[in-house]
């Protein structure tokens, strides 16, 4: 409730207010703090090698976190991303190591990338139908694949570690473009596409409308079910892609570990990046910043000889801080 008269006395000029600034730019500030800390403390931080390692590791988190951001923007959540990574990662070597794949290498590689992505998309479709058509709570709906997806992947591979040597497939995880990891560029490209989708297309507008007020979106003619299914499918495909990248980096597929705990990293990155869990906001580049923050914290602690378990606690503190800032933003 405010009047907007122009003749009212002007506001007294105040000194710079830190509170609101931190609330809107918290992510960037945190990133800057971590970078400065590293430059001062961590040995050999300002080296090409450090950048390289971090980019190649952060790309998968960022890719999944962007899909998660879309799902969260509709007011949902997707717990199955890690399991989908394992599934798609298990499928790829099965295909290019098969007789068909060996006989026709080019076709084999293409199929080894496309088939897992299609399978991942089907997983997303399954999640989407449960949530949109059958009205299952997203956390329960995606719990189904969270539990069974990794199981399926392990059954497919008999629980074995699949190792391989396939340079063209490994390009996904080890290739370089302009001296930087291929998957980094891939993540950036996806971010640009999704950003345009969210800001320029009807689909993007409906995603935000559904998260903001689903009843209103539906009564205004929004295709609520199709859009919801759509975001879960996008999230599925991006998870599948991340699964392939992890396999490509390692030249090995381990269905038990691929994407393990990724759902937590992805949710954390989305939230740190500014996504609201009740929906209605989809900061795509925020998700990338969130992923970078989480990756850098992990790296900082490891590089300074802090144990892995402590890194987990640090991650929890970051999430806590991000949620706190969000609450403050809501008044």
């Amino acid at each position: 409730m405010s009047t907007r008269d122009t003749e009212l006395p002007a506001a007294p000029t105040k000194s710079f207010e830190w509170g609101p600034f931190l609330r809107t730019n918290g992510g960037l500030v945190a990133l800057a703090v971590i970078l400065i800390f590293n430059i001062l403390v961590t040995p050999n931080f300002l080296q090409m090698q450090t950048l390289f390692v971090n980019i190649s590791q952060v790309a998968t988190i960022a890719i999944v976190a962007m899909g998660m951001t879309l799902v969260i923007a509709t007011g949902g959540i997707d717990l199955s991303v890690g399991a989908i990574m394992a599934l798609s990662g298990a499928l790829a070597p099965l295909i290019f190591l098969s007789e068909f794949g060996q006989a026709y290498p080019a076709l084999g590689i293409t199929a080894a990338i496309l088939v897992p992505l299609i399978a991942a998309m089907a997983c997303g479709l399954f999640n989407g139908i449960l949530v949109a058509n059958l009205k299952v709570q997203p956390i329960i709906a995606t719990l189904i694949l969270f539990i069974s997806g990794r199981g399926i992947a392990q059954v497919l591979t008999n629980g074995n570690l699949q190792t391989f040597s396939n340079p063209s497939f490994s390009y996904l995880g080890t290739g370089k473009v302009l001296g930087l990891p291929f998957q980094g560029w891939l993540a950036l490209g996806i971010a640009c596409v999704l950003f345009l989708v969210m800001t320029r297309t009807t689909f993007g507008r409906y995603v935000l409308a559904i998260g903001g007020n689903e009843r209103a979106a539906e009564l205004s003619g929004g295709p609520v079910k199709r859009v919801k299914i759509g975001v879960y499918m996008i999230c599925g495909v991006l998870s599948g892609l991340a699964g392939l990248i992890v396999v490509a980096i390692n030249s090995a597929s381990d269905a038990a570990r691929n994407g393990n705990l990724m759902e937590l990293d992805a949710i954390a990155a989305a939230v740190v990046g500014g996504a609201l869990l009740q929906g209605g906001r989809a900061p795509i580049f925020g998700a990338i910043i969130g992923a970078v923050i989480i990756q850098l914290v992990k790296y900082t602690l490891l590089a300074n000889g802090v144990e892995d378990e402590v890194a987990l606690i640090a991650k929890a503190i970051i999430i806590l801080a991000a949620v706190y800032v969000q609450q403050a933003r809501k008044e």
Partner: protein
Amino acid sequence: MATLLNMSGIDKAFAGVSALSGASLDIAPGEVHALIGQNGAGKSTLIKILTGVYRRDGGTVQFNGADSVISSPRGAQEAGIATIYQELNLVPLRSVTENVMMGYEPKRFGVLINWKEAHRRTREILTQFGIDIDVRAPLGSFSTAIQQLVAIARAVSLDARLVIMDEPTSSLDASEVSVLFGVVKSLRDAGVSVLYVSHFLDELFEICDRVTTMRDGRTVDCRDIAGTTKLDLIAGMLGRDPDDIEQAGMTEFGASSADVDKGAVLLKAEGVSTGPRLTGFDMVLHRGEIIGLGGLLGAGRTEAARAIFGVDRLVQGQIDVNGFGAAPDTPAAAISAGFGYLTEDRKAEGIIPDMSVRENLTLALLPKLTKNGQIDRAREREVVAHYIKALGIKTANMEQPIRELSGGNQQKVLLARWLAIDPDVLILDEPTRGVDVGAKREIQAIIRDSVAKGVGVLLISSEFEEIVEGADKIIVLNEGRIITELTNPGITEDTLVRALAQTEGQAA
């Protein structure tokens, strides 16, 4: 006269924009005091300062003879100020007792809740208000009116000296309102003061002692309600001369489209039923016609609107649209058939609070603004700019989040959402509810203009003058069935009330 509350010279600004300047409020012990003003006049801000939600920039607040040190809603409650909000802040799934006693449960051994005692006390409190219900049942199983009374009972049980009611009757029907008024009167008799905020001016004459009028963040008037007319109050809120308003009529519909000849049939409903709340509904809507749906709350008016718009599935009957034959079975289908539906509940079914005015306004138009999945943003801005200007929507710019707008301006944005699709049929459910007097007249004028352009309107309104002056024909509903039809010219508030009274008689 002794005073319970004295606020004077209150100033408050948000981000440099003044919301209150020198506002004042004076309430005596045991009086029912009305606070009125247009949306944006500063009523809510003043109340929030009183209850510690906001901090004042200047001025003094004295409560109960001492300087008030209230700095939080909890503090206000402890000081004896209870607020009954428009949206009840109770827990529907928990029992009535739990809701009434929440935070003040009687304890055994200091930790365990003494349920027997809690139920007994709750029953005792509710009986004082003439409410006799099962206190163990979940609160949500009772009507809104009962829930509201429970909220009031809770407030009073906490020894409130002042009860603030914000639009308490907006979701009550006539009989529930009279129960509420009974409670308000018994509060007054018990020496409790009530600050009563409402857009329904008629109510004020029934229960209030004095009325304070606010306009543009200032208190412009405070007087005894006896000897005041409704016209005086409206004039005070608008800052206009009473005589001008009298000449222009109470609504903007006056001298409506009586001489416009009715065009083609737009919509024909025959024997439409969607369940017990709507059975055997018939209607024919022509171009350039306004059909009013009359009836009390729960009579089936909103259900009729939902059936036509494809929200509720028909179990019987058919709806002919423009000769298409088939009824739309989803809102999306209804929209592409040229229907618009302004819902009754602006907050729950209308606005998307965090989205901008622009995005809210073009939501229904999106399919038409899209080429290959891409929104034509230049055209979008054009449309939005057009409607902001045409409807006089007060917004800083089209990117302002809609939640920051006043109720009347939010409603105008939603109206524009439907006008933008260039509809044939507009279903308007309480288009001016919770909207201040000025915006109300503007909205009525907008409706009149689009009818003149050939739109057929289905108008649902609890404000009799609106429906009586606006509609060409009124279909009166009761308990989901059509009772009678009235045709203009010739309808007066009196005939409508009599028709409704008859339905009450028949139902009994």
